[in-house]
């Protein structure tokens, strides 16, 4: 099953399971979704539960917050993460803060879905990877599924959870295939990292689509450099399963984080800080980071190619951690 179809199945199952779950977003109904994630759902559930909206990001997220505060479970789709900046105030100052600032009187069971990522030559303003913006925000849960199974399991968990969730999908992953448990009760709970590949020499943490790049790089490292890398996909960044990452680093003594977003203040920076704090004496080399370039994403293919991480950069970063031995 494709990642896209897994998300579609999760939405269908949860809408069937719970009458209060409904979808709002731009072109999710008649148009079937910009990336076809919601294909067929309008026909199946009707326009009360699959609602096309005008282009008003801040307001559709805010309406989701209001509906969530009063008993519904809205799943809002932002066509892409690039437009989430327009809804930042509703996501941070409202969705994430409301429960705390009102002393726990109300909950906000809202899911805001959005795909991110570069690689399709969409250029500046349309190629962002911003998990690092959202992981900063207390009150939010943040998911970054990299496989069809996780896409389904995590989305189901997100919809059932009583906290506001920023659910970050990836445009490149939509077409990827993978096995998906079709058990409608299977949910993948947040805060459980996945070890995608076991290894003893170095720990590679891959975020969102870069979890896939990390695995490919690991295979290359084994085949060509005789380095056995352990690949970890955190799956969610809030909550974060740091235990699994630390346990691995304490065995491998080396750690590389791979992400698509900007280098400063990114997921890699956060993990590097946490890992060196918690496993300082276990590190034989600095925690390394492979990130997107520090610039708006250029449109031109050859420039875009070198502006976000690919296997060679991961391999190089890993090998670098051995140079000093």
């Amino acid at each position, binding site marked *: 099953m494709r990642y896209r179809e897994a998300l579609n199945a999760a939405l269908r199952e949860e809408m069937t399971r719970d009458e209060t779950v409904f979808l709002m977003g731009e072109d999710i109904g008649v148009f079937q979704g910009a990336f076809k994630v919601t294909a067929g759902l309008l026909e199946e559930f009707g326009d009360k539960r699959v609602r096309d909206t005008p282009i008003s990001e801040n307001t559709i997220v805010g309406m989701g917050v209001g509906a969530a505060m009063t008993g519904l479970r809205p799943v809002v789709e932002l066509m892409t993460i690039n437009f989430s900046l327009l809804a930042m105030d509703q996501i941070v100052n409202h969705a994430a803060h409301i429960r705390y600032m009102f002393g726990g009187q109300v909950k906000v069971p809202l899911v805001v879905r959005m795909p991110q990522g570069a690689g399709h030559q969409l250029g500046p303003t349309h190629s962002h990877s911003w998990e690092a913006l959202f992981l900063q925000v207390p009150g939010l849960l943040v998911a970054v599924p990299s496989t069809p199974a996780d896409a389904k399991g995590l989305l189901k968990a997100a919809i059932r959870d009583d906290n506001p969730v920023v659910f970050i999908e990836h445009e490149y992953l939509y077409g990827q295939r993978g096995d998906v448990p079709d058990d409608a009760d299977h949910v993948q709970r947040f805060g459980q990292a996945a070890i995608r590949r076991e290894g003893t020499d170095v720990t590679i943490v891959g975020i969102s689509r870069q979890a896939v790049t990390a695995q490919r790089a690991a295979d290359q490292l084994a085949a060509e450099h005789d380095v056995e890398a352990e690949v970890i996909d955190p799956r969610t960044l809030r*909550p974060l399963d740091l235990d699994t990452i630390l346990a691995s680093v304490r065995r491998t003594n080396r750690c590389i984080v791979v992400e698509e977003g900007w280098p400063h203040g990114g997921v890699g920076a956060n993990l590097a800080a946490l890992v060196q704090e918690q496993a300082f004496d276990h590190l034989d080399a600095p925690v390394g980071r492979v990130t997107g370039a520090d610039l708006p994403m250029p449109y031109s293919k050859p420039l875009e190619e070198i502006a976000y991480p690919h296997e060679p950069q991961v391999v190089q970063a890993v090998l670098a951690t051995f140079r000093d031995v």
Partner: protein
Amino acid sequence: MAERSLPSPDVAREWLETMTLIRRFEERAGEMYAKAKVGGFLHLAIGEEATIVGSVRALRDQDYLISTYRSHGHALARGTEPEKVMAELFGKEDGVCRGRGGSMHMFDLPRRFMGGYGIVGGNLPLAAGMALTSDYLGTQDATLCQFGDGASNQGTFGETLNLAALWRLPVVFMVTNNQFGMGTSLERHSAVTDLFKRGEGYGVPGMRCDGMDVMDTHHTTQEALRQAREERRPVLVEAITYRFRGHSMADPEEYRTKEQVAQWRARDPLTTFGDRLVTEGVLTEPQREEIDRVANETVDAAVQFAEDSPFPPPESLYDDVYVLGDQVQGWYSIDERAAGVHKGEDEREWA
């Protein structure tokens, strides 16, 4: 505007009682702020009591009310205990929001007072979302969304009105036009000063009422709510009023003249409504004074309650950041203050 006739004596008396309570409560809150018992920003609605009580009294118990950072009056009118509102201002554990929100962030779920919000224009989308819930669940509940003249310049205004009209949501948007957005007067922040007309381009009809007249405000809001409820469409109501005090406690008020303030104070809704109740024989002067005395007593008790209430204990700092459970048992933080969220910091036992 033709003068509206009075409601039944009991109703009229209750309106005056509530307006008086709000006035005395806010005056005292101001004093407590001066004594540093209350911190942060304190936005008083003194002068706007008729707008508040007239509109809130047009609501049914099941209707949703949502307001701004200037919402002590809305909470009190909705029935929130004055002592809990005062305790919130004091930042105490017994405050409506356990001291987490303060003056700008009141909330009372049981009474469907869905909160005061600090972000100008931020509450309009929430209101439409609440109305969407009523529509989705097929109830007869309506939502009343209060915001100011300045807020009508925020992008959320146009976005929300369009969506509410497009989806025929049972929501009344009430712009409390008190002539100023902070220090900026209406004509200096809005190209069109007839704010009730601003919704027409989005398919939302407008009405205007005299916000200094509790009866006119009540009558207009009630009609607007009826249309929202029965005809399933949003309405925009503009209430013309004035805030007698500064925007917040720290406001030299250089942006308006003493004369202008005096002119509006001459129309003080408490006085005008009270006078009328006396003239029309609903109240005797002694009864009117009694109302004032009772209000003051209630406020005294509220202050005492707030004084006696404890501050939230430090261990409660992280309460309610998340709904904890299977998924969120705690979370990583490097933060020494975060009890129980230090999983994995074993290597820093010594820290």
